[in-house]
């Protein structure tokens, strides 16, 4: 409430919709387009987000586990990862078009580029930080195959780190939505509408969709934390509280 009040007071002081649309102007814009947001924009953006995140998980989890478990794999793959990691998702747009056309997959690819590295790095770190004594204890108890050690020891140990990586990845993926929806892959979507209203200089709608992006990102994060941290990783509670 305080933030909304500060926003409205600041906008009233600025008195320029181009510089800072007020909360009331943004609320009015919402009242005009909320059905379109719910029926068209949100499903489109969620589709792009899910394609990107699914791709990120499918690539980053196995790769991070392999790099974290096998030193040789880490030595070979790490330089390649570090070359690609700093490249911003935006730079991949021309290739997204060439490889995937103007499709939802192309948008998902841009989000994938943003999501894959946090998951990969955190998975790698989780595996790499596994204390030697856990592995030796498991071997004593009969888990001698790498597959068993990964399944029963390393992966559960690394879960909090992996969950942290996925949480960061979701935030970055959601941010990449704006870039992912700007090159003609769809005529709806939260990111698409930001560009669309920007071209029409309707800054109240631009800010509305920015706020919607933020609120939905918060909802996704809270949902993830509830499911993963409070349910799947419930055992962690006893460690710190």
């Amino acid at each position, binding site marked *: 409430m*305080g933030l909304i*009040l*500060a926003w409205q*007071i*600041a*906008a009233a*002081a*600025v008195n*320029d*919709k*181009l*510089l*800072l649309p007020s909360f009331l102007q943004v609320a009015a814009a919402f009242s005009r387009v909320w059905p379109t947001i719910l029926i068209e924009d949100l499903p489109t953006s969620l589709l792009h987000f899910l394609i990107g995140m699914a791709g990120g998980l499918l690539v980053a989890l196995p790769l991070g586990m392999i790099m974290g478990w096998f030193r040789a794999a880490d030595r070979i793959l790490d330089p390649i990862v570090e070359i690609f990691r700093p490249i911003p998702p935006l730079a991949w*747009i*021309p290739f997204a*078009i*060439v490889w*995937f*056309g*103007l499709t939802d997959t192309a948008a998902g690819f841009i989000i994938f580029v943003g999501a894959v590295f946090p998951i990969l790095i955190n998975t790698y770190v989780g595996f790499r930080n596994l204390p030697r004594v856990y592995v030796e204890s498991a071997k004593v108890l009969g888990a001698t195959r790498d597959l068993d050690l990964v399944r029963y020891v390393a992966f559960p140990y690394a879960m909090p780190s992996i969950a942290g990586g996925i949480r960061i990845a979701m935030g970055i993926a959601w941010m990449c939505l704006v870039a992912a929806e*700007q*090159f*003609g*892959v769809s*005529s709806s979507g939260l990111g698409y509408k930001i*560009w*669309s209203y*920007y*071209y*029409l*200089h*309707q*800054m109240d709608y631009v800010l509305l969709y920015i706020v919607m992006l933020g609120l939905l990102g918060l909802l996704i994060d809270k949902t993830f934390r509830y499911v993963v941290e409070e349910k799947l990783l419930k055992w962690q509670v006893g460690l710190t509280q």
Partner: protein
Amino acid sequence: MRKFIFIALLAAVVVVTMGCISSPEKSGNATSSEKTTVNITTLHVGYQPSTHQIAEMVASEKGWWAEDLKPFGVATVDEKVFQSGPPEMQAMLAGALDIAYVGTAPPITAIAQGLDAKIVAAVNINGSDLVLRPNVTYSGPKSLEGLSIGTFPPGSIQDIVMKKWLEDNGVDISKVQIHGMGPGDAVTAIEAGKIDGVFLPHPSPAQISLDGKGRSVVQSGEMWPNHACCSLLISGKLLRDQPALVEQIIKTHIKATEYVNAHPDEAAQIYAQKTGQNLAMVKESIKSWDGKWISDPTIQIPSTVEYAKIDQKLGYINKTLSKDDLFDTGFYVKAVA
């Protein structure tokens, strides 16, 4: 209670900070009536790397902007290049540009949102092509149903001209997949074979044709004869405070336009050097396009006003814009007198 005091203090800090920030245009307007007008010493010019706007580049490279505007106190001409009209208009809305070479469509939406500026001269008419991939058959507008076409975003000249032409020819627009995007993305998409065609301003059609990735099937002058394309837009502040400077800007623009029409090869050379684009491609573009470099704004009035009506019908703007809202032809009349 403490939380409330903290939030109230934060709000007060924000208000005091924001109160110190105001639109440059607004603060200029607030003081100009009270003080003597201060002539600008730096002219901020916006333009796009398109063969449509060669006149701006010729005027720049020949030194005419600097030479002709110096007597009016302009010591520096600061050029900013934009890939498309909307960010150029956003910059003008923010007070960062004094004059803009820009398509006539972006100023319509910007002026509807409060941009204080007027179109004072024309830059070109026509000049866009519908390009289809070599293996895509074309047998008239109806044959476009079922195809995917990339063009500039909704509200742009290309979007309006193409959709009007399709409707006038009985084409069901819902059966044509129209993708709104920038020129770079559209050229990439057609050259990668990911869309069937594009409708873009030159020189992109020439580039695609020379790359062997498409051929022009319809030119925009055939879709809408003599439709307005690029124009010269000047800020309201400059129009009011420095009318003599505005008149000279138009004279320089006319001089550059006449020079381009008389020396197209040299103009192509200047354009290629300034933009880094391939000279052979630029020459081919100028040879093959149906565009015309002009300066008389009255030629553009009918189609521009029609664009504004279409924008309003589509909900892109929420008011009716008349010729006088968009144009000020008085300066051009004085410049050619």
